[in-house]
């Protein structure tokens, strides 16, 4: 059935269709309507679940971990500072192997205070043992969230997952979405079942006590193996999803890369804009292409290698400043994936704090990459949408 939904409501629909048993949510812009809508449909009886109105995101994740280990499919959603506050419990959920699926509405972390889209929140959590899926549109939000439950709860994976949607660009934009029927989702997604660690007085075990130096490495290695296993499981689940619902989900998506001289790698809602610019420039005879990363954790390095191994010039767009690092995170990963090739890989940072990633900036990136490809130039503008005279911004503080 088609519905007009914004990204947040698409996430709510997915959680409802996944029959989440326990919800613990705390409001934060731009996630708030997820918290609101979930509480509304639980109160009305449309969704059969327990809703815990928690006093912080830290508690939200703590409660989800407790509920998850006690045999309930647990759900929460957050954004920005909320995710940062959860940080400690993000690590705990992964280590305790609680397969929680969490929509994260991407927003910059203060300070400076910003309510708007950026990937710093999820990027700062990237190595803590959660899978991360980045969505391009509201249909993606619904589809990848449903698929994420099946992947996260697979017995060879048992690893939590974030489904990332760009704040406001997706969370608050209404789009036409194909919402699957409950009975089809029920057939696709089996009941939540714990087989390894659980809290059950009839079969007592103590979960998550101290692990000595003789065991810790191996327990962490098990998490690594789960991440390594994830690609096969993701491919299978995406295949089943396609068979059931007729929509193709991807680990990465290549767009007009085959004969492209230069390719831009990017994630999230900006990929729609990039596709538009690719088409526009192709019409002028410029051979440009795009690779969209959907799965960022585990990082699909083999897929990236296969897609880009023959490309000579590649740009990578990070919606995240990487302070003090040589390259921002997506670019770092792409460089690592293409190690051994002679690709010239250029890092671009932009779209911070909600600044629109607009077609003219994407076109500028492609033109720079094409110039590098043809040997006309060597330079690129790595902070692509920076205003002139950036050091004069907020000068009232500068001279205090």
């Amino acid at each position, binding site marked *: 059935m088609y519905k007009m939904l914004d990204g947040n409501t698409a996430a709510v629909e997915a959680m409802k269709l996944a029959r989440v048993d326990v919800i613990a949510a705390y409001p934060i812009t731009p996630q708030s309507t997820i918290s609101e809508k979930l509480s509304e449909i639980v109160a009305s009886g449309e969704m059969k679940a327990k809703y815990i109105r928690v006093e912080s995101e830290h508690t939200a994740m703590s409660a989800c*971990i407790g509920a998850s280990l006690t045999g*309930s499919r647990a759900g929460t959603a957050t954004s920005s500072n909320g995710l940062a506050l959860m940080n400690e419990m993000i690590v705990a959920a992964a280590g305790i192997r609680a397969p929680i699926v969490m929509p994260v509405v991407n927003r910059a972390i203060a300070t400076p205070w910003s309510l708007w889209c950026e990937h710093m929140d999820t990027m700062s959590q990237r190595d803590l043992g959660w899978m991360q899926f980045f969505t391009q549109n509201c249909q993606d939000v619904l589809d990848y969230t449903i698929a994420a439950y099946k992947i996260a709860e697979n017995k060879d994976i048992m690893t939590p997952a974030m489904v990332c949607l760009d704040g406001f660009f997706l969370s608050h934009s209404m789009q036409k979405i194909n919402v699957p029927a409950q009975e089809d989702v029920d057939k696709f997604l089996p009941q939540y079942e714990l087989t390894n660690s659980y809290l059950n*007085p009839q079969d007592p*075990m103590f*979960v998550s006590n101290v692990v000595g130096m003789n065991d810790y490495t191996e327990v962490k290695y098990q998490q690594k193996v789960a991440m390594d296993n994830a690609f096969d499981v993701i491919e299978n689940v995406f295949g089943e999803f396609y068979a059931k619902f007729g929509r193709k989900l991807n680990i990465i998506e290549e767009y007009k890369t085959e004969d492209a001289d230069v390719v831009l790698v990017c994630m999230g809602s900006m990929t729609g804009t990039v596709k538009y610019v690719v088409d526009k420039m192709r019409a002028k005879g410029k051979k440009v292409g795009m690779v969209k990363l959907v799965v960022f954790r585990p990082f699909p390095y083999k897929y990236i290698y296969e897609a880009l191994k023959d490309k000579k010039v590649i740009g990578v767009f990070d919606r995240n400043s990487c302070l003090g690092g040589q390259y921002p995170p997506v670019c770092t990963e792409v460089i690592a994936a293409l190690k051994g090739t002679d690709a010239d890989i250029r890092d671009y940072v932009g779209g911070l704090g909600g600044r629109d990633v607009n077609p003219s900036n994407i076109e500028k990136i492609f033109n720079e990459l094409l110039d590098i490809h043809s040997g006309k130039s060597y330079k690129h503008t790595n902070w692509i949408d920076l205003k002139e005279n950036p050091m004069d911004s907020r000068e009232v503080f500068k001279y205090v």
Partner: protein
Amino acid sequence: MYEIIKDSKGTLNHGISACAGCGMELLARCVFDVLGEDIIIVIPPGCAALLTGMGAECGIKAAGMMCNLENTASTCSGIRASLDSQGNDHTTVVGFAGDGGTLDIGLQSLSGMIERGDKVLYICYDNEAYMNTGIQSSSATPFLASTTTQPAGKPTVKKDLVGIAMAHDIPYAATASLHNIADLKKKIQKAKDTDGPSLIHVLIPCPTGWRSDPADTITLARAAVNTGVWVLYEYENGEVTVNYKPKELKPIEEYISLQGRFKKVTEEEKAQMQKIVKQSYERKIAKLEK
């Protein structure tokens, strides 16, 4: 990977690695005795984490988990909601945390749990400092007690946990002491039977942190009550019952002279301490019996 060996008496194994004379271990045994096997227990890192053992070895024959330091109450809330969603109204969800994990870093999470009315039994074993990390001051450390972060003595008095819970109008809260096990067990049972959040705050003499003789644990628990340092009372459906009032308060000397943590207290400070203890005892009784 977690093996539970089921051949000792009671829920808590013998021979666990608590310090000699540890009051927390005695409290834990009382808690398990009263609550039985149908429980899920949540323990944060701290002294009680010793009971959970290490790696494949575990001292507790009950379903439980170690949470993080500040989220005992929130983890319990999640477990309770999960059991409720499965129609399980018989399993007791119990949080068992120290004073640091309760009164300092865990206060927000506990406040949330109580305010929401989540049916969780929360027990705070209060040994009055971060003992497991090496005797650092917490907000439960008493006036002038010397700790590794305040070696000259803490200049402020301790936080009133049950008072905070009462401000939430918690259905059941009580203080308890190890020198009166019958009273303690009765309170645990009452808390278990409460349809909503419940809290028991137990003063736990700690030979390691209080620098007292392990043989004096019960003596100290009794002295705390008889000197007015620790008041035994219950708050039940809005009504307060003071469980015990000494006919006459014993001098503070009887309590502090047995403890190394008050060794540096001067005569002048001792007088000041005596004044504060007496004043706060009288104020508290007056307030509770109002």
